[in-house]
């Protein structure tokens, strides 16, 4: 059974249909990709899956539990975390604090006045592991807004991982990255698949074809194609495009 499932999601804002009919299912331990042209409804779809928007119709299941219309914090606590396309960090805070804030151990100690934060061995150790995972070791005490663009992208993913999620939603992780940084990110995501179920929206089709186990193409608020990278690449028109040559 799929770990996370969206069934016939329909979302409209007033008279405007943004998602017509989206059904997706994400298998445990797999990397699922979502691609589609600008304005196709990919980010709105993520917003519905992670609780930012309540779908007008349809249902969302996480590990068999109906989470349709649940708040972002509830979905996050159940173990679905996400990154953002436009970076969404705690800018005044240091890199390590961005991670610590997202640790469940920290969150659960919110009422403890005596709990140390920045000299707490468990917090520091867990945050250190996450930062090592995303390649930010050594930058712990930098203010997050002073990081380079690529490092901020990595931190964006680090914050999503810190919540110790079962499934991670990444919204356009390569957006704005150069070739070398994109290659590093691909390595990172390959390593992450050992531990997490990953869903990512991606513009860069080659990136998805290389990493994903399953891809859904979204256009006009609907899933217009679905399949393994090989199946999608075998399409006549994909063969004719620049992607066919790469594949």
């Amino acid at each position, binding site marked *: 059974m799929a770990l996370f499932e969206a069934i016939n999601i*329909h979302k409209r804002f*007033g*008279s*405007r*249909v943004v998602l*017509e*009919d989206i059904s997706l299912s994400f298998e445990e331990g797999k990397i699922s990709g979502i691609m*589609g*042209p600008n*304005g196709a409804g990919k980010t709105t779809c993520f917003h519905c899956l992670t609780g930012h928007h309540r779908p007008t*119709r349809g249902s969302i299941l996480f590990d068999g539990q109906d989470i349709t219309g649940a708040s972002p914090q509830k979905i996050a606590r159940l173990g679905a975390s996400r990154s953002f396309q436009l970076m969404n960090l705690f800018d005044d805070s240091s890199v390590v604090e961005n991670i610590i804030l997202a640790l469940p151990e920290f969150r659960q100690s919110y009422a403890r006045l005596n709990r140390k934060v920045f000299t707490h061995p468990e917090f520091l150790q867990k945050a250190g592991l996450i930062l090592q995972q995303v390649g930010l070791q050594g930058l712990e005490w930098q203010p997050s807004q002073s990081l380079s663009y690529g490092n901020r992208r990595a931190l964006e993913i680090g914050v999503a991982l810190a919540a110790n999620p079962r499934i991670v939603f990444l919204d356009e992780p390569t957006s704005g990255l150069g070739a070398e940084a994109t290659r590093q990110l691909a390595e990172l995501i390959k390593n992450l698949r050992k531990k997490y179920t990953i869903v990512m929206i991606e513009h860069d*089709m080659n990136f998805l074809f290389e990493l994903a186990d399953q891809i859904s*193409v979204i*256009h*006009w608020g*609907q899933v*217009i*194609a679905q399949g393994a990278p090989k199946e*999608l690449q075998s*399409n*006549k*028109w*994909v063969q*004719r*495009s*620049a*992607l*066919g040559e790469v594949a």
Partner: protein
Amino acid sequence: MVAMLSVENLQKTYFKGRFDRTPTFSLKADFQIEEPSIVGMMGPNGSGKTTLFELITGSNSPTGGTVRVQGKDIHKIRTDQRDRLAIHYHQSYQVRSFRSLKPNFMLQRSGSDYPQVHLFDEPQFNTQDGYIGFMLDFFRELRNQGRLVFLCVHPNERFHLEILQEICEQFIFVQKGVVTQHSSYEDILNYQPARDYLGDLLEARAA
């Protein structure tokens, strides 16, 4: 059996102004599409293609005539449910306001959750990104599920014609407000105004 789409004596006339009733543009259409199908639509810019789409989806009210989607007069359906019968996919997302003199509670329900007629208004076809194939598969999928698909293309490259030929089972040609129906790709190429309109592209194809 009820026709998928029935456009009966449909007429839309635009006037110079509220008081100056000199017609500036007039569109007339009368055609029927019985079965689920993929219909190609062509015609020069300003010929009335988008107006026809708006009339079919009920976001623009006609001067005369009716549009029936599976037997239901779209202009008598609640404005917030018209897109459950026929939906217009614009080139770029924009909010279309549905207007009606009658309030919604006096209008009929659409009785459908998913649109029956899908009108694609000049979708972005780009040979580089490979999406064309997925889009065409999707059109076929819709048709196989019993929907009616309109594909409006303003061909300015050879592969646009290839797409139309590959996927469309019949055609609608619109020019200067005159709407004609053609049963096949060959049929529309035999229609002189369409030949004139496509002009160079047909040459390029022959070459």
